[in-house]
């Protein structure tokens, strides 16, 4: 397996191939029982994405339900304080439910409805994807079952209650490490068992084909909008894009429209937790190795026996031992680079943005802000850094208070 040899690529928009491969990554590594439904989903989705009626339906909900387009905001006080390049924020935190996740759940719920599947399952870590799924299920009148690790349920009580308020059933997962990866395993087991009437809404660009492609397509609205907004507001494209990478859906959402604009650099910020050298992190691309997890080949965090190991991040949404296969491909091709941001760096960026701009960013997004601040320090004043502010931080105030020894 080539690890560092760059792959020459002429058109980044030509991926994946028909079997879901991004060069050597991606694919469909799933038990036979789920292969026919995955084939069926791929065929249905490929037809829908060409269907003007489906596209119009999706765009209507993005506009009137989600509140798109989200603005690009110049963080001027923050940029001035740093004294380097200009930081621009793509405000996905202003979407309904407070994150980019809703772009994808609206899209998949529409696919499910058109396929006649009325029982929706989902996995969630921080609860953001669970809330976004419960929200669209309420919106479309679909049954919603969310699998969530028992450890995460304890960490994210407010989101658990939000899902219940929206009419979803939250099922605690007690297997394995009782976190996001195990919630995904349990959702797959549900799907294998109830495959006839159930649609699995995966929360990021992971899983077997067609999920990495489909979830990317639904989030790619972020980059399409941003590209047009940059041309309109600044008369040019940004010099660098940055976004946090858990599974990678907000990052690929921003990157995708710019992939063939070779002059635009791209940096993904992974969770370095306590520091990559401590082993307590979730930086699959920076510190993992090629392997197979949850239906695709990608970079994974595992031991020498191939066992997936526990990850760590202050942000539950980045706490995942794999990453979307398209990012593995972008890394190997040299088109994007991926760096680690520690818990402490993310927290510092959270406070900096709050105090200078009056924006409470999600802890996940704070990793991207930290990376944008680092880049701004290195780059001249006339350069533009576009940072994806993937979500708002209200959900994280308890975590931050606890970390800082404050009782609410």
């Amino acid at each position: 397996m080539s690890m560092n040899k760059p792959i020459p690529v002429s058109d980044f928009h030509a991926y994946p191939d028909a079997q879901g491969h991004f060069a050597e990554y991606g694919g469909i590594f799933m038990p036979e029982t789920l292969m026919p439904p995955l084939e069926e989903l791929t065929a249905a989705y490929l037809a829908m994405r060409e269907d003007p009626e489906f596209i119009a339906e999706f765009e209507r909900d993005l506009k009137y339900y989600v509140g798109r387009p989200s603005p690009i905001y110049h963080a001027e006080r923050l940029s001035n304080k740093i004294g380097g390049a200009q930081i621009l924020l793509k405000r996905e935190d202003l979407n309904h439910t407070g994150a980019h996740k809703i772009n994808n759940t609206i899209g998949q719920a529409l696919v499910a409805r058109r396929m006649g599947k009325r029982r929706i399952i989902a996995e969630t870590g921080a609860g953001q994807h669970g809330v976004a799924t419960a929200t669209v299920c309420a919106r479309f009148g679909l049954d919603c079952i969310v699998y969530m690790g028992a450890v995460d349920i304890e960490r994210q009580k407010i989101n658990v209650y939000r899902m219940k308020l929206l009419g979803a059933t939250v099922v605690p997962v007690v297997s394995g490490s009782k976190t996001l990866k195990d919630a995904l395993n349990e959702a797959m087991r549900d799907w294998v068992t109830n495959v006839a009437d159930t649609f699995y809404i995966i929360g990021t660009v992971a899983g077997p084909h067609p999920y990495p492609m489909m979830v990317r397509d639904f989030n790619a609205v972020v980059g399409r909008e941003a590209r047009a907004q940059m041309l309109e507001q600044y008369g040019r494209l940004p010099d660098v894009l940055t976004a946090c990478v858990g599974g990678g859906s907000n990052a690929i959402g921003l990157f995708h429209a710019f992939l063939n604009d070779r002059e635009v650099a791209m940096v993904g910020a992974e969770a370095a937790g306590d520091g990559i050298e401590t082993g307590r992190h979730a930086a699959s691309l920076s510190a993992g190795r090629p392997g197979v997890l949850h239906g695709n080949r990608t970079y994974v965090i595992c031991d020498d026996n191939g066992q997936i190991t526990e990850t760590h991040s202050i942000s539950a949404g980045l706490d995942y031992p794999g990453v979307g296969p398209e990012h593995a491909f972008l890394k190997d091709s040299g088109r994007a680079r991926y760096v680690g941001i520690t818990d402490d760096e993310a927290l510092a960026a959270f406070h900096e943005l709050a105090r200078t701009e009056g924006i409470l960013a999600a802890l996940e997004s704070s990793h991207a802000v930290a990376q944008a601040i680092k880049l701004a320090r290195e780059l001249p004043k006339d350069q533009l850094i576009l940072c994806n502010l993937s979500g708002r931080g209200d959900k994280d105030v308890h975590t931050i208070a606890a970390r800082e020894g404050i009782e609410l």
Partner: protein
Amino acid sequence: MSHHRIDKRFADLKHAGRKGLIPFITAGDPLPEATVHIMHALVAAGADLIELGVPYSDPVADGPTIQHSSERAIARGVGIKQILAWVSEFRQIDSTTPIVLMGYLNPIEIYGYARFAEQASMAGVDGVLIVDVPVEEAEAVAPLREMGLCEIFLVAPTTTDRRLAAIRARAEGFIYYVSFAGITGASQLDTAAVRARVEHIKQGGSIPVAVGFGVRDATSAVSVAESADAVVIGSALVAQLAATSDRDSAVAAAHAFLAPIRAALDQAVRR
């Protein structure tokens, strides 16, 4: 070529008019030092082929029984290197019972395909059944086939005829038919539905069909064996072994569990 051991076993069964009995155990569970002894005990109790589970941290097709057995084995550090050493040890005494390693791809991918293929075939492994490698991705494991390891595939109730043809074209040794859409350890066996599917699979060729998932005792084994060439018993056996606390009791439990099923299968055929 080592997969001759599997082909020969199925040919012999057919010739003798018997049904194959295939126990599954998780390697290293309940105790690493018991695995080889359990394998011999299973053969003594009438096993025709042994499926040895390679533990994995994220077994999406498995129910709680096999999940927990994998977790226990992983906690004891069981990995491919040790499992292959156990197979070599088993082969010093038993050179005829085929062994199929069953598991998920990541442990093999991380071990290295060429290295795994060479060492597994040297150790006396006959085949591999990698649950998360469908026929579309089978090229990933081509080095295993090149070293003579038999590639065994699953067929499910959901499998379409187009897929069945592709699987048949590639499958070696036997086809493993999953009796229901679900995870291991569930019990929703529908014998009539299984028979219809097994007969359909058999129409297309001569490759033997083993049926697994939902077979838990003599009664279910006998009913499935009416149409299948062999039956696979996993979770029910793993659960018996999990209840034991030392090597000797695990070995005794393995024998006590399998022997009556063997007897029932042989009796049903004679009738």
